[in-house]
């Protein structure tokens, strides 16, 4: 696997570390924040972390596939956000007390 010196000299592991941190923050955020929208943003964070990992691997393995995958994840992310927000809108329209995930618990066991 020939590492092309032209690109940055910072070893991939660092990028991966950053991506991991980003991902974990996104995950923790998703779990701890009650506001639906913020949760949604945390999901976006996690997606970005993954994209970063893909790009890093693309570079480390000198294979454009990684970047292509990021291209596709972007599309999926966009679609997901659109639908997600539509759902959030339909659930929380007209709610007075704001969009917290806990209010929608009709399916309680």
């Amino acid at each position, binding site marked *: 696997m*020939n590492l092309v010196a032209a690109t940055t000299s910072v070893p991939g592991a660092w990028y991966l570390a950053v991506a991991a941190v980003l991902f974990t923050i996104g995950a923790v955020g998703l779990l*701890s924040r009650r506001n639906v929208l913020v949760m949604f943003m945390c999901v*976006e964070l996690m997606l970005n972390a993954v994209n970063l990992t893909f*790009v890093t691997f693309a570079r480390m393995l000198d294979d454009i596939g990684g970047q292509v995958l990021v291209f596709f994840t972007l599309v999926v992310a966009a679609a997901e956000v659109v639908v997600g927000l539509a759902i959030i809108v339909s659930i929380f329209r007209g709610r007075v007390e704001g969009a917290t995930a806990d209010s929608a618990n009709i399916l309680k066991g």
Partner: protein
Amino acid sequence: MVDWIVFVVGAVIAIAGALGVLAAKQPVHSAVLLVMTLFGVAVLFVSQEAHFLAAVQVIVYAGAIVVLFLFVIMLLGVDRSEDVRVETLKAQRQIAAVLGVLALAELVALSRFHFVLGTKSVAGAASEPGANVELIGKSVFTRYLYPFEITSVLLVIAVIGAVVLSRRIRTSEDVR
């Protein structure tokens, strides 16, 4: 040496933004901080020779998606500040924190191994001559043409879905 500076700057911006999204009381602040993170990541993309993606990242993500977020925030009128410290579910936060740390530790440990599963994808070398965009375009429209078409269908569905979902049913008693 420059590479390191670029990396650190990008990383700091990204992580700070992420933490900000988490901590912000107002959802609007979160949205803005999200944009900041996106920029951080875009910088890291650029440092990794993924110029096209950095551009797309900024335009699509920051430009479109976050704007959509803000639009929804305004629509739902959820701009009231949320008391971050209050946690209705029992032990939710504590477990979330523990799991977060665990996951991080595992990811870091994993990143040291060349943990390879399955066959090597051959989408063409990243270092070939020509701009990054051409390379991506070549592989997208040759090897990955089929997924490309499917994603377009996906987008169409997403749009229709959004319209259907957020349509308010005009029932008689719905005076509002």
